[in-house]
């Protein structure tokens, strides 16, 4: 099995590694970098628990090869919080009760982050569409939509 050298930026930090072709980006993040925020729910693109931003766009990391990450910029939920504390988006999830078991949360947050970066004032329909690929078995989604709506407003107000 050939090992492929890769170099990528993860949460602003430059990383270098050698990976086998069949390693997914999700496995690389979790097992090599110990960034265990992104989860493997289905491994087939359906649940969104593994959502990360690849060059700013949400993708399911279970369906991206680690070698395909070479030269790219990846962001995970671990990049949300800053030294000053949780992000506005993370706090909105807590305040709206949008987290129960938390398994879907890292993926939800990254889908929401991707949405807020392309649309700072999304409608509820746009929020629902942005998280249509993220399954949550606990919350019933309403609190999640409310959290994203709230974070959008707070982020706008700060600017």
């Amino acid at each position: 099995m050939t090992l492929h050298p890769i170099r990528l930026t993860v949460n602003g930090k430059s990383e270098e590694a050698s990976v086998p072709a069949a390693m997914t980006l999700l496995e690389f993040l979790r097992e090599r970098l110990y960034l265990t925020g992104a989860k493997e729910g289905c491994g087939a693109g359906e649940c969104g628990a593994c959502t990360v931003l690849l060059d700013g766009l949400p993708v399911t990391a279970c369906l991206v090869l680690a070698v395909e990450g070479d030269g790219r910029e990846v962001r995970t939920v671990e990049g949300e919080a800053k030294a000053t504390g949780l992000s506005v988006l993370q706090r909105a999830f807590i305040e709206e009760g949008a987290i129960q078991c938390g398994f879907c949360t890292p993926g939800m947050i990254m889908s929401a982050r991707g949405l807020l970066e392309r649309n700072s004032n999304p409608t509820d329909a746009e929020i629902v569409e942005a998280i249509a690929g993220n399954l949550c078995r606990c919350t019933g989604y309403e609190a999640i939509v409310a959290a994203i709506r709230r974070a959008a407003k707070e982020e706008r107000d700060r600017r």
Partner: protein
Amino acid sequence: MLGEFEYVRAKTIKGGYSLLAKAGGEAAVLAGGTDLLVNIRAGKASPRLLVDMKGVKSLDRLTFSPKTGALIGASVPLNTIVENRGIRTRYPGLAEAAWTVGSYQIRNRATIAGNLCNASPAADTAPPLLVLDAILEVASPRGEREVPVRSLFVDSKKTSLSFDEVVTAIRIPPVPATTRTAFLKRQRVKGHDLAILNVAGRYDPATGDLQIAIGSCAKTPVLVPPLGEPVPPDAPIPELARRLEALAIQVVHPISDLRATAEYRRALLPVFIRRLLEALLQQSDHREAIR
């Protein structure tokens, strides 16, 4: 780990097809991977080598002009197609079909080339590309050739392409500004599901030219045989729908699967033909999904 395979990022189109040719049918092009990697993981595909064409710059381009139509590079993700103004205004049925594929995350990776080459009977971009008479630009060690989407699908999950052929682009011929296209899809849940039935149509009120295509209702997506006469914009829809249904049942063979029974598909068919005609002739909005 997904399985046992090697990976090469091709730098040129020639580099890509040469690798495919050398692997003698044991290699596969990796586009978005949203079918291929899922199939590998499920043990339904076991290529020895994945040839990633996304490093080839020319495959990344999407150009549109009303005079020449659209040229969609094989690596262009569906979201880029959905967001393209030219595609949205001139081929709204295609934009709609691309938009209904999977979720936002999936569409940031998935491509039209992959959707067509995977050759699922339910491939959402197939019906609109059939009615638009789109053409695949294909390259192999034997040179370049054009393959109409209308002659691409051979069987469920089988295309007429050879193992050493790389799709480089999808070309959509220009259509008059008066041409309307529409796409309708029945699915169980938005964001996670293939179609139970998907239909697309193209209609030009100026010429009366009408074509419809149906997906998820036969071994391949199918073009319904033409009516053979122009359809005026005020044509009575119930009668027109009955005639098209009679033509459609010559080419569809609905089956039962985990998404729906053959009987349900057969019952949906006239409903979706009627709605499609209403969308094309009367411009009514029958799209089901949230927006």
